């Protein structure tokens, strides 16, 4: 009997304690205690989670980095390919523009026949102004044929092999071109020089020239066809004590950047050497 009462009281006390705690919890009286008790728990869990996430990133990141690196490499490769494609297209565009200009020039001279050629080198001697082109006697080129670009006169062929030719530029110190000033009767000889400078020699003192006058080939001497643009008068040198005046000419062609030229193939230069007087043998 006493054992029954003891168990009853114990159960009753426990029930009352639980009910009291439940009552206090439902009433919100236990919140400070719960907060106090849960704070270390939450802190521990946060600490653990942070470490876990760090560890997870450490374990998983190399794979992501590798994937990213691979992606970067692919993009860089594609970027390089596109860049080279842009450069190629720009070169093609420049070539097309040059070709178009040359075609316009060829159309403007329907009486002439042209062969296009690329410039493939320059004379190794620094004293001379010659270029090499990639067309030769197989393409109908002959010695003495004039060479032009869309801008104007370049020079004439000096030597030919089967698939190449050497062109003497008008800026060469040994070159001489008979020219005339546009819209006037003035004619003169254009000479090259060591520096690539073009000068008009043998200009009469009374010839009226002014800066900006256009210089064209005159056709005299039979070396070049008539009316090909050579350049413009850039400066005049006049001295009263001399018989002739000289003029500095700005060439129409930029000889440093020349890439493609046209050879006039239906022009036959006249060989005047038989007409030149031979010095008498003493």
């Amino acid at each position, binding site marked *: 009997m006493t054992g029954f009462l003891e168990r009853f009281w114990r159960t009753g006390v426990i029930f009352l304690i639980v009910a009291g705690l439940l009552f206090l919890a439902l009433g919100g009286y236990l919140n400070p205690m719960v907060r106090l008790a849960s704070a270390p728990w939450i802190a521990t869990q946060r600490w653990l989670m942070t470490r876990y996430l760090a560890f997870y990133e450490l374990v998983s990141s190399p794979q992501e980095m590798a994937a990213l690196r691979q992606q970067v490499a692919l993009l860089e490769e594609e970027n390089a390919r596109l860049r080279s494609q842009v450069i190629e297209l720009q070169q093609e565009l420049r070539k097309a523009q040059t070709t178009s200009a040359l075609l316009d020039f060829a159309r403007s001279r329907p009486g002439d026949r042209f062969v296009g050629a690329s410039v*493939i*080198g*320059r*004379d*190794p*001697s*620094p*004293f*001379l102004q*010659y270029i*090499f082109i990639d067309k030769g006697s197989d393409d109908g080129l002959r010695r003495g044929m004039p060479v032009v670009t869309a801008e104007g006169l370049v020079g004439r062929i*000096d*030597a030919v092999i089967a698939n190449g030719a*050497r062109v*003497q530029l008008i800026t060469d*110190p*040994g070159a001489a071109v008979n020219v005339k000033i546009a819209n006037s009767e003035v004619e003169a000889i254009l*000479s090259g*020089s*060591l*520096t*690539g400078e073009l000068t008009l020699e043998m200009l009469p003192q009374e010839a009226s020239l002014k800066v900006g006058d256009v210089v064209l080939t005159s056709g005299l001497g039979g070396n070049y066809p008539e009316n090909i643009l050579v350049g413009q008068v850039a400066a005049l040198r006049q001295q009263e004590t001399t018989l002739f005046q000289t003029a500095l000419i700005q060439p129409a062609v930029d000889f440093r950047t020349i890439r493609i030229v046209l050879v006039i193939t239906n022009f036959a230069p006249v060989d005047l050497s038989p007409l030149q007087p031979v010095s008498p043998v003493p």
Partner: protein
Amino acid sequence: MGILLGLPIVILLTIFQSVVVSNIPLLHGTADVVLLVLAALALQERISTIYEWAVMAGILMGLVSAVPWFIPVLGYVGVVAFARFLRRQVWQTPVLAMLLTTLAGSLGMLFMQMLALQAQEVPISIVESLNLVILPAVFLNLVLALPIYALTVDVSRSVVSEEVEI
């Protein structure tokens, strides 16, 4: 290295000279890579057929250039002969020999070209040639002499073993 190996090398050098080096002037002078390579090879005594190389280079240059064909031939053979002479005299200082060969060879070659062109009645002024072509070209050659010598020594060492006199 024999004559057969020399021919493609000389052809490549001539093409390089015409396409690249001639387009990089200082004032109006340009370097002469063929001369520099021949001088560097002649100073090493590794190539017994260097005179044949010089003749080949000269003929090729003579064919390519509008300069009279015998000028490059004489010039390059002269450069090789001078380099060989210096090799025996100042064999302990090859760099000095290279610079001397470059200086003398460049001056000789360019003056010969100038005189040949004047003989052909090309109107070239000596003072203008000296100021605008010869001195800049010699300067460029001297600047390039040591790098080309070093490069040539390295390449020839890896290709040809030195001839030892017993």
